[in-house]
């Protein structure tokens, strides 16, 4: 076991997959000579050279499209968007082409491409650079969307994504890059589409992923000190969404709070709550609560921005409303 950061875990996964398979290569803005805007690919250019670590122009549409085309023609590109905010420019390539070619041409072709994108708010980057638009991408069948909350999951999920024959968007919450955690030496894979119980409990189910999951874990810790036992389920994948462990937990606790950093309207919480009432209606003991970002563009000013984002207190307050 090594105790490493999420950044390191992602970097290790990339390096190991590139060593394992020559068809895996990286493309994106500043991924090479610079070493990656978030330093995930630091050293890769020297280690693998320009054939496998490709600096692109500032051209999101062609990053999305060319990575997809290269995947159709036998490679396994890992295309990095400098941040997910710029992936809006590539949305068409991702949802109309990467996510569709397999189906639309009757199974004749596949697009095993991975799009990596750091995202999330909380860094005083202002309204355009602070989005958590994960649901937008998760809306479309054909694309897989995963977003890890721990270094262990990050490494295993990224390996699964790269080895998958399907297109995957791998979202990295930028505030988690420094988060440390146990990661085993050597090769392992965390399958996509499998939710994971991160903490066991009996009184309430907290559902989250990525940074929201970390907030939920912290809330559970505080609640425990007050005698409230919260179970925490990590979705890990937004599509496919594995409701199994969530429903199982809910049938035990009869109460749920869904924690997500994105907006509440049309969000993950809305989806999970709807599924819970469909799949476990008889177990509903209280309204299902959602803790999410306020419905405002994120402001720059520090306290103002923090006020709009999710936090531990808001999760605890939501739990107390339904206990």
């Amino acid at each position, binding site marked *: 076991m090594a105790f490493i950061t999420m950044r390191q875990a992602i970097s290790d996964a990339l390096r190991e997959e590139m060593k394992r398979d020559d068809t895996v290569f990286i493309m994106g803005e500043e991924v090479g000579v610079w070493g990656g805007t978030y330093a995930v690919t630091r050293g890769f250019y020297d280690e693998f050279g320009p054939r496998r670590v490709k600096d692109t*122009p500032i051209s999101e549409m*062609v990053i999305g*499209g060319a990575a*997809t*085309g290269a995947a159709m023609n036998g490679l396994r590109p890992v295309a990095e968007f400098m941040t997910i905010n710029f992936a809006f420019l590539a949305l068409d390539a991702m949802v109309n082409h990467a996510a569709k*070619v397999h189906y639309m041409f*009757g199974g004749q*072709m596949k697009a095993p491409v991975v799009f990596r994108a750091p995202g999330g708010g909380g860094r005083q980057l202002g309204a355009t650079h602070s989005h958590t638009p994960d649901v937008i991408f998760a809306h479309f069948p054909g694309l897989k969307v995963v977003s890890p909350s721990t270094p262990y999951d990050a490494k295993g999920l990224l390996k699964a994504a790269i080895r*998958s024959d399907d297109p995957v968007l791998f979202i990295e919450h930028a505030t988690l890059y420094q988060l440390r955690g146990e990661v085993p030496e050597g090769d392992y894979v965390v399958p996509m589409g499998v939710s994971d119980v991160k903490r066991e409990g009996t009184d309430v189910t907290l559902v989250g992923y990525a940074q929201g999951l970390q907030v939920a874990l912290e809330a559970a810790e505080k609640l425990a000190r007050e005698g409230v036992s919260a179970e925490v389920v990590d979705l890990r994948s937004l599509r496919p969404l594995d409701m199994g462990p969530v429903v199982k937990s809910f049938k035990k606790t009869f109460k749920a709070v869904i924690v997500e950093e994105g907006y509440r309207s049309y969000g993950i919480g809305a989806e999970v709550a709807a599924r819970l009432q469909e799949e476990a209606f008889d177990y509903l003991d209280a309204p299902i609560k959602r803790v999410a970002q306020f419905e405002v563009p994120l402001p720059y000013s520090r306290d103002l921005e923090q006020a709009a984002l999710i936090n531990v207190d808001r999760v605890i307050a939501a739990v107390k409303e339904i206990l």
Partner: protein
Amino acid sequence: MEKATLLEWYRQMVLIRRFEQRCSDLYSLGKIGGFLHLYIGQEAVAVGTIAARQPGDHVITAYRDHAHALAVGSETGPVLAELLGKATGVSKGKGGSMHLADVNRQYWGGYAVVGGHVPLATGLALAEQYKGTDNAVLCYFGDGSTNIGYFHESLNLAGVWDLPVVFVAENNQYGMGTAVERASAVTRMVDKAPAYGMEGKQVDGMDVMAVYEATSAALQAIRDGKGPQFLEMLTYRFEGHSMGDPLRYRTKDEVEKWREDDPIGILERYLLKENIADREELENLDKGVEQELVDAVQFAEESPFPAYEELFTNIYVED
């Protein structure tokens, strides 16, 4: 040019022309749904360019894609079946007119978002370069598509990375109802190429031999290490943009003038004048095409629609 080659081009162009006419009929009968974009008038472009490709070279285009399928040699029956939404269609009935593909023939398909396939072509080429092959990509798009961001980002990337793509602009003078000069700040498509390090060449897109020569030269230039190439094919679509086009944006005179340059007529006159073929030979080819189409229509009509279960297959490769 060998006689057999010229006659094959003639046959392909006639096949495309009559295939499209059949489609028009089947559309009127309600057997083809959705959007239908005919290639009538532009036949020499698909036939002449694809004739120049070597095994291993790729083809990818927009939604006006029937001709490219037929020119790469896709079977007429399954192509027509796709348009009828049948299970035996090239894309199992899930793509339709705008999304034909035949990957076994390196035809990566038609794409209905204007410009969306241009970066895909760039990526196909990137994969060939990465694998160290000599193969290139023929990427087709309309004049209207040269105004979209995808086009510019893709040409630039191909230029910077020296990717083996022949960008083939099919300038049929209009994007839907918008004439080139109303939509593009420069009216010659080739004038966009130098911005991305390509010279570009204007070609008479009604002359299949000229199209073939230019494409062969472009492919050779790529294999000689000269980087991506740009060809502007000057052509015209004789029919509307798609079915039901009110055709308010151009005059009958203009259409009639272009029809004098009918690509099939040009080749036919050449074959007869140079005594390469006589009328009887050409009529026999026409008859062969007619029979092929009768068979294709029968095949498509008699084929079943996809089973309900097909709705849920191929969403992902892995479940």
